[in-house]
Structures are given as structure tokens and as C-alpha cells.
């Protein structure tokens, strides 16, 4: 498991190998470590490079630092990350798209913190965007993380709904379904208090999606 100190050491190591300025987003459990949530360690480090050439550059930087590339996404699975491993460090690098999620301008505007490690700038996404990034997977660990975020802070649900609409229009058109299922699991399995207004909005987005499917 990787805690915040070890994560920072890794970024420092990457910055030492970087010869040009690169900005990278940190998402998922790695982003949670930068906040005062109860989660203190993560299994892997999820990074998002905004462009494909930056992803390739970061992968080469990590290889120079001693990492071994264990997975390279092809054309059929371009939304999957590039995976690099060294000891207990596991780094997944995405390029603007994280599985079914597309990094939007809204997410970039909501960045809460930027940390400069020399040539490498690490940007930390907001807690609402961490929840959004967790809603597309089926992993119980991700639901647990989202539940702990919602329990520990006051989440801005309007941002989540707005982002979901954007993702449905510009990214994966099924995004509203993912979010609806996700919130449903949180309410029933984790007994999380999601506002009724938010649940109504997700239900209506799902209905709109089904109607559109029916028309096709």
C-alpha cells in the first residue's frame, strides 16, 4: 500500500527524470490522499496525462526511473491505462480518458491544488470529481471510498449532476445510467444519505436516455 509520503517521493523521482514541463492530474485513491479523508493509503497511483504524447513521455520517464511496463493499451482498448510497476509501486497512466470518463474543462477548472515538483506539476481534482471517477467501476472498494467521502464532507451534488450531463453529451452517453446505479448502491448497500433531489435528477436522466434508445 502507498501512503502520501511515498507518493510524493515517487513524484519527486519522476520530476528528476523529466526534461520538459509536464502537467499531470491525479485521480481516484491517489487524489484522496491529498485531502484529510480517513483513507491513508492506496493500492495504485492513477495519473491522467492530458495528451497521448505526454502519456508516452511519462511512461518513458518512469522506465528510466526503473519501472517496468506491464500493460500497453492498443487501439481496441485505448481507454485503458498504461501500467508500470516497480516493487510495490503500481502506476496507471491514462490519456485524457479514464475508462468511460472523459476529462472535461469543468474538471480542470475545479482543480483544488497544484504541486510543483520541478518540471512535473501534479494537479489534484476536487472531491466531487473523485466521486465521479469512482462511479464508472463496479469495484466495492470504489463504492466504499465514495461513501467515505460523502460521509466526511458536504458534497456539492449540483456539480456531480452537471458533470454527469456533460459526460452523457460529450463522452459516454450511458454515463447517467452508471451514476444512477452507483448512487443506488450507495443508498442501499452503504446507507448513504443522497439528497432526494439528486436521485430524482439521475432517474430523469436515465428516463431520457431510455427514451432516446427507444426512439432509435
Amino acid at each position, binding site marked *: 500500500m502507498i501512503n*502520501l509520503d511515498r507518493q*510524493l517521493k515517487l*513524484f*519527486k523521482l519522476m520530476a528528476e527524470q523529466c526534461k520538459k514541463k509536464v502537467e499531470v492530474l491525479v485521480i481516484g485513491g491517489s487524489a484522496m*490522499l*491529498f*485531502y*484529510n479523508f480517513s483513507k491513508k493509503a492506496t493500492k495504485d497511483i492513477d495519473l491522467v496525462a492530458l495528451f497521448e504524447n505526454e502519456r508516452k513521455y511519462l511512461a518513458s520517464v518512469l522506465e528510466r526511473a526503473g519501472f517496468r511496463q506491464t500493460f500497453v493499451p492498443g487501439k481496441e482498448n485505448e481507454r485503458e491505462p498504461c501500467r508500470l510497476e516497480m516493487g510495490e509501486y503500481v502506476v496507471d497512466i491514462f490519456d485524457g480518458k479514464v475508462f468511460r470518463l472523459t476529462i472535461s474543462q469543468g474538471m480542470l*477548472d475545479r*482543480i*483544488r*491544488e*497544484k*504541486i*510543483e*515538483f*520541478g518540471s512535473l506539476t501534479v*494537479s*489534484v481534482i476536487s*472531491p466531487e470529481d473523485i466521486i465521479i471517477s469512482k462511479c464508472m467501476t463496479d469495484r466495492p472498494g470504489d463504492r466504499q471510498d465514495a461513501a467515505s467521502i460523502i460521509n*466526511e*464532507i*458536504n458534497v456539492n451534488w449540483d456539480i456531480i449532476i452537471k458533470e454527469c450531463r456533460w459526460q452523457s453529451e460529450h463522452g459516454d452517453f450511458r454515463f447517467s445510467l452508471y451514476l444512477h446505479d452507483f448512487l443506488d448502491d450507495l443508498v442501499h448497500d452503504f446507507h448513504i444519505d443522497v439528497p432526494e433531489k439528486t436521485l430524482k435528477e439521475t432517474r430523469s436522466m436515465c428516463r431520457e436516455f431510455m427514451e432516446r434508445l427507444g426512439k432509435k
Partner: protein
Amino acid sequence: MDWRKMAKKAEGLHTLEGFASLMNIHKKTAAVYLHLMRKEGYVKTSRGKRGKRLYEISPLQLRPVGSKGFFEVLNENSSIGIQFPYVQKVYGRDVRAEEVIIWALLTKDYRVVLASLELFRKVGDFSLLYRLAKHERLERHVGALYALARKFFRLPRIDGRILKSMMRAPLKKKYIIPPMKSSDFADIQHKWGVFIPFSMSDFDRLRR
């Protein structure tokens, strides 16, 4: 006592009385709770009008990482307060005033560049400032702003050789903040060949 839960319930900006009334407790108890929450990192204190103490309560905090970034250094050294959309930190070193001046120029933001003028007071190494300016091709811009800041603040003197090098540097972009230029400070604009975006009245704010 679960301070995080309390911070979540009371999130926002409060006075002591407001917090006490919200939590339905006595003022003295509220003061103790705020003190204990501040120790946990959930409360930031500031002053409002007529010196009234204000408490900003939030259950969400960023873990302390690195040292002060450009925004913090700028705000600490300038009488103009600048609000930034995110927290910026630098890991593994301290940011110098020279770097902040160059960074401020690169933002091309009116308030940020105006606020950075006071940072010339903190410049300890003009050769570093020149090297950083040369890297970004901003030698003349930095020289002009230094000359401008000298009119209003007491600044350390720049070395004559560095000044000459700055004046001889090639100039590609005449605007410090395109397309802003003013009719004040014509002598500096003419000498350095760049357009100063500030007018005399902007410095009243700095001097206050």
C-alpha cells in the same frame, strides 16, 4: 467528540455568536469547541469589519504538502490581495521572489503583475532575476517594471551591468499585458520600449 461531524454540520463562515446559536450551545462552550476544531485543522480564523473575529469552518482540508507556492508568496508581500482558484505548492524547495516576479509576468493578469511590483523589495539576487527573465525573453519587461517600482518604493539597486544587459536585450513583444497601455510613465516606456499597462491612480491602491 467527533470534530469532523461538527465541522460538516457547521460548514461556512461564522462569528462566535453565529456558531453558538447554530450549535445551540453557550458562547463559552462555542469558543472552546472552535479552539479544539482549529487544533484539528477544521477552522481558520480571520478578522472582519471592526476587528470582528470570523471563523471559517470546513471539514475538507488539504494535507500540508511542500512549501509556499507563488500565490502565497505574492499575497504575503503585496498589499493587493489576490484570490486564486486553487492552492499552489512547491515541493522540495522554497520559492524565491525572483521566480514569482517572472511567473507573475507570464500570467499576463493585470492585478497579479501590479501586485508583483512590491516583490522587487525582496529581490536579493538580480543576476538570478536576469537569468530567469532571459529564459522567458522578458528582460526589457522586468527592467521596465523595476524602473516603475523604483518610483514608488525603496528598492535595492540593480547592478549596472545587469541593467545594461536588460536594456540591450532584443524585444519581441512590446506589451507587458496585451493590449493594455497607458499614457502615464512615458519616460519609462520610451526608455525600455515596452508599454506599461498601469496608470498613476493604480499606485494609490498600492501605497494605501
